[in-house]
């Protein structure tokens, strides 16, 4: 390799670092002030690109000058900033005080809504943007041609960093942002108009995301998948840099830019894995990122959001369970469609139940539970299609494979807590997704694996339904037993107060790690059963939307209840299965439903059930 080639490689690393920083700086500023991790930040980035590919060509019709190009880019950024204000005023200011999980879900609801709106307005086809007038040529660096626009991008990052520094240190608004990042309550106590501060912060953050998106149009065409692909990277940058730290984000973007530029030479297929591995290493050494500060401990003890005091079932709930079990057994008397949905509901109920074992019982908010579901499915699927094993050993292997990965990832995950933990689970899920997606020779890549069928004795839909019912009901009963057992109680105790648990002699980290592994194994069993019910598997089983589906089932069922998530899975899946074929706007509907549930119905179905029975007859 020639050194001039390496130089060009380093320069292109700097260019992507620059773009990444512009986007991540907005995310980190918004988190610093509002303490909300905004999933919709990726949507703002996508909207920036779409608005720019719409207005920049229109502007260039008047005059093909570089100035008009940048006027268009800035106008797009400002327009997205206004959308950020809309989001703050209509949604965020209602959820500043709700638990993190609900905040994450609500902003993910916005992601879903924006995805459908973008499809409505711009259609599903990628839109190629114009190239920047005056920056279309290449510049020769020794013998290597380097695009002038990339060279320009290299300077955008430091320029934005400089402007943000001026804003933060020379204006009242910036000083307030820094103050709120350090101590939000104190800023409020000093009589600062918080509503204005938060709205302004969202404007700034969204505008930065929009700027990042608009600047990309000469490099990549605007497409409806931009949001989720960028948000994972932006999360990684802010987490590595330290959430709330703008210089940290800059540093992290530089690191990641270079890692990607050179990683692609050594491991062309797994650059994404390298990036997430860097994140895992940084978080283990510095749990709050390179330049981040630990969260100040909450002054007052508050009742955790989750399972409070699991009691033996009362009569009415027992009756409800008997009815549900009878329905499961009777389903084959109905039509094949009912059996299919019933089988899927059972599987998803186990997955949701295992997630609530972590979230509701352990306070471990995993945003990547689909990884273990999907890894179980792939574990079983690969054994059948590649190793030629029959269903039975493959089904036994599914939970073991998933538990092994949960143990591996969980080793890192349980070192963190709160929002950092959620981000790390998401990152590991993305690693698993990337590996499954890119390792085409083994996993079949995007197409997945086909021919994952049950053994002959279980081949009929009805028999397989009963097999699934037996496995899922047994697994759920066993997990419920664990919730009530000392191990489950210990996880709850550690959720309530780590300090107290430590002081009575509990090794909190080890217990959480075991819990994470157990829940991963249960999700893996569900995944294995799912693979055989479909006959095929593909990478979407491990994706973020799948993880969010699981979390939505918890939200719908009620994370305070032990059995609620089962009802949540049933209703969620039945509604999804019924409505999805009827509408082109399922995501819009789901997004609005998630936000609606967070705002008006946070205790879910189980909360409603409990409320119903408390009412005097």
């Amino acid at each position, binding site marked *: 390799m020639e050194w001039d080639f390496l130089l060009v490689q380093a320069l292109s690393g700097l260019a992507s670092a620059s773009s990444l920083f512009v986007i991540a700086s907005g995310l980190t500023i918004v988190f610093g002030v509002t303490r909300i991790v905004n999933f919709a930040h990726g949507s703002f980035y996508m909207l920036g690109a779409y608005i720019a590919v719409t207005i920049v060509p229109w502007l260039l019709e008047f005059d093909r000058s570089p100035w008009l190009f940048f006027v268009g880019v800035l106008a797009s950024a400002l327009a997205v900033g206004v959308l950020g204000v809309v989001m703050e005023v209509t949604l965020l200011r209602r959820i500043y005080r709700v638990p993190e999980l609900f905040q994450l879900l609500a902003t993910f609801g916005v992601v879903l809504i924006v995805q459908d709106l973008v499809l409505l307005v711009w259609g599903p086809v990628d839109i190629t943007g114009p190239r920047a007038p005056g920056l279309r040529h290449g510049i020769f660096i020794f013998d290597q041609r380097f695009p002038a626009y990339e060279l320009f991008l290299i300077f955008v990052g430091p320029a934005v960093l400089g402007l943000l520094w001026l804003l933060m240190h020379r204006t009242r608004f910036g000083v307030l942002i820094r103050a709120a990042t350090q101590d939000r309550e104190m800023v409020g106590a000093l009589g600062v108009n918080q509503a204005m501060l938060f709205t302004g912060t969202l404007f700034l953050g969204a505008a930065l995301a929009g700027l990042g998106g608009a600047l990309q149009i000469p490099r990549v065409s605007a497409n409806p998948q931009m949001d989720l692909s960028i948000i994972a990277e932006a999360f990684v940058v802010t987490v590595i840099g330290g959430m709330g730290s703008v210089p940290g984000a800059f540093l992290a973007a530089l690191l990641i830019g270079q890692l990607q530029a050179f990683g692609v030479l050594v491991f062309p297929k797994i650059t994404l894995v390298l990036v997430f591995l860097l994140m895992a290493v940084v978080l283990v050494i510095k749990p709050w990122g390179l330049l981040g500060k630990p969260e100040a401990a909450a002054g007052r003890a508050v009742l955790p959001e989750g399972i409070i005091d699991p009691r033996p079932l009362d009569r009415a709930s027992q009756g409800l369970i008997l009815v549900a079990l009878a329905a499961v057994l009777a389903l084959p008397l109905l039509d094949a469609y009912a059996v299919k949905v019933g089988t899927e509901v059972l599987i998803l109920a186990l997955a949701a139940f295992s997630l609530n074992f972590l979230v509701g019982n352990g306070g471990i908010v995993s945003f990547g539970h689909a990884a273990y579901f999907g890894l179980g499915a792939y574990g079983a699927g690969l054994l059948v299609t590649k190793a030629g094993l029959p269903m039975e050993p493959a089904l036994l292997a599914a939970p073991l494979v998933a538990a092994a990965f949960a143990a591996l990832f969980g080793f890192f995950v349980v070192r963190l807590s709160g929002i950092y933990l959620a981000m790390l689970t998401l990152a590991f899920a993305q690693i698993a997704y990337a590996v499954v997606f890119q390792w085409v020779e083994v996993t079949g890549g995007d197409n997945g694996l086909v021919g994952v069928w049950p053994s002959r004795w279980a081949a009929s839909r009805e028999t397989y339904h009963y097999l699934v019912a037996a496995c899922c009901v047994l697994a759920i009963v066993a997990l419920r037993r664990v919730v009530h057992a000392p191990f489950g109680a210990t996880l709850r105790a550690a959720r309530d107060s780590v300090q107290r648990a*430590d002081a009575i002699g509990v090794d909190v980290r080890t217990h959480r790690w075991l819990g994470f592994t157990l829940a991963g194994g249960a999700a893996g069993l569900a995944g294995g059963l799912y693979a055989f019910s479909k006959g095929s598997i593909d990478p979407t089983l491990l994706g973020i939307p799948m993880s969010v589906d699981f979390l939505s089932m918890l939200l719908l069922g009620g994370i305070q209840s032990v059995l609620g998530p089962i009802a949540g899975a049933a209703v969620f899946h039945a509604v999804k299965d019924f409505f999805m074929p009827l509408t082109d706007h399922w995501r819009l509907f789901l997004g609005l439903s998630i936000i609606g549930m967070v705002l008006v119905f946070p205790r879910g179905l189980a909360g409603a059930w409990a409320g119903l029975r408390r009412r005097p007859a």
Partner: protein
Amino acid sequence: MTLLAAEGLNKRFGGVQAAKDVSFALDAGEMLAIIGPNGAGKSTTFNMVGGQLRPDSGRVSLAGQDITGLPPREVCRMGVGRTFQVAQTFLSFTVIGNVQMALIAHHGQTRKLLPDAMAMHRDAALALLDRVGMAAQAERPVGELAYGDVKRVELAIALAAAPRLLLMDEPTAGMAPAERSALMALVAGIARGERIGVLFTEHDMDAVFAHADRILVLVRGEIIARGRPEEVRADAEVQRVYLGHSGTRAATRARRAAHG
């Protein structure tokens, strides 16, 4: 016999020497108070004994065994119970559930997957609650209790590990005056009756002078005085930097009220 010995503990945070060559010893059944103004290094000293902080240098030993730098859960298993400045309980559990949880941990049963946790150690938990006067409220959620009662539950949790030593960081902080003396009398009774050593920090001079057997006075990380309450009260240096004259009178009153 010496139960707890701290020898030459040092801890520095950046430019601040939070503890400088702190040494003391504590016998079984003895109540030793650490007092001093805010920022004197009381909590630092305390956390070095409890395992929350590792000293830069020095040694902590419990009944002759070195426990320096062990994590809190190990320190607990060596027989040290602990209460916190802001009471730490398991808020989602009932009162008795809190104590049962502590007993489950004490018996090393936290990884059991089958038995019903809330059916375990009920009698022992009730007995502990009875000792702190909370048996009547056993089934209430701990989150509903008045703060003074939460502190009692926390004491029962700490006692569940059958400790030889109790570490109590400002046991009466945030409590009403009547609750304070009742709690301190309870602690003193348990300590003397069961030969448990108690190391506590406290801002409430009434509590300190009424119940401590000996007192350490810490100022800017250094021990400036030590001794029995009347010795410390009479110490001119202590009066100058910490108690002041009204404080000295209050100390006399408190001592008289407690011991006649």
